[in-house]
């Protein structure tokens, strides 16, 4: 049983479109995250939710909107996609927010904007 799952695994779309990536965790964790791995391979945090509340919102364009319908799900909606949004997006979850709360990552969603 996959602990953190993401759908879709691959997403190819045109500039200007709106798309969503879904994330689900079955670990019973309270905290969920979205990270972006850019072309330089750095993994950078975008958002973090704890018990459905937004707690970290890094400098991300407001075209990106996370939504947490419940503790087990954190979806990422992207409006008006741009070429620079092409990246691999990883969802993660952890029990708490502290450094010793191990973050478990999903397999990633590779987004390609044409």
């Amino acid at each position: 049983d996959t602990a953190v799952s993401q759908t879709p695994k691959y997403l190819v779309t045109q500039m200007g479109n709106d798309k969503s990536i879904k994330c689900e965790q079955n670990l019973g964790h309270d905290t969920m995250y979205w990270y972006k791995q850019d072309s330089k391979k750095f993994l950078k945090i975008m958002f973090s939710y704890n018990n459905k509340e937004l707690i970290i919102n890094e400098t991300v364009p407001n075209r990106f909107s996370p939504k947490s319908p419940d503790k087990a799900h954190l979806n990422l909606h992207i409006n008006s996609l741009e070429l620079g949004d092409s990246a691999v997006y990883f969802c993660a979850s952890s029990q708490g927010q502290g450094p010793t709360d191990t973050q478990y990552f999903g397999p990633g969603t590779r987004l390609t904007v044409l």
Partner: protein
Amino acid sequence: DQQVKQNSPSLSVQEGRISILNCDYTNSMFDYFLWYKKYPAEGPTFLISISSIKDKNEDGRFTVFLNKSAKHLSLHIVPSQPGDSAVYFCAASAWGGTSYGKLTFGQGTILTVHP
């Protein structure tokens, strides 16, 4: 401004030898450090961590060393095995301040272990 850097994009070692992966950081507020391992088409998985109150942490074949004065940490894998071939990410966090609750990653080092 990258606060965590892994300056070696790749490392190649022979099976049975030691692999040493290096990581440097600039933010003195970081006080907890982690290594993650990533196979192709999978997400990163936690490998080992170290708190800034220690200078060494060992878990089986994996040992992480921390040199706070140099703002440098390293991961030693002894002996290296072909199954260790993966991308290794260094990450840093903190118990407080703006780095609390998030991981700041380096860009990764591709380790290849040859049989």
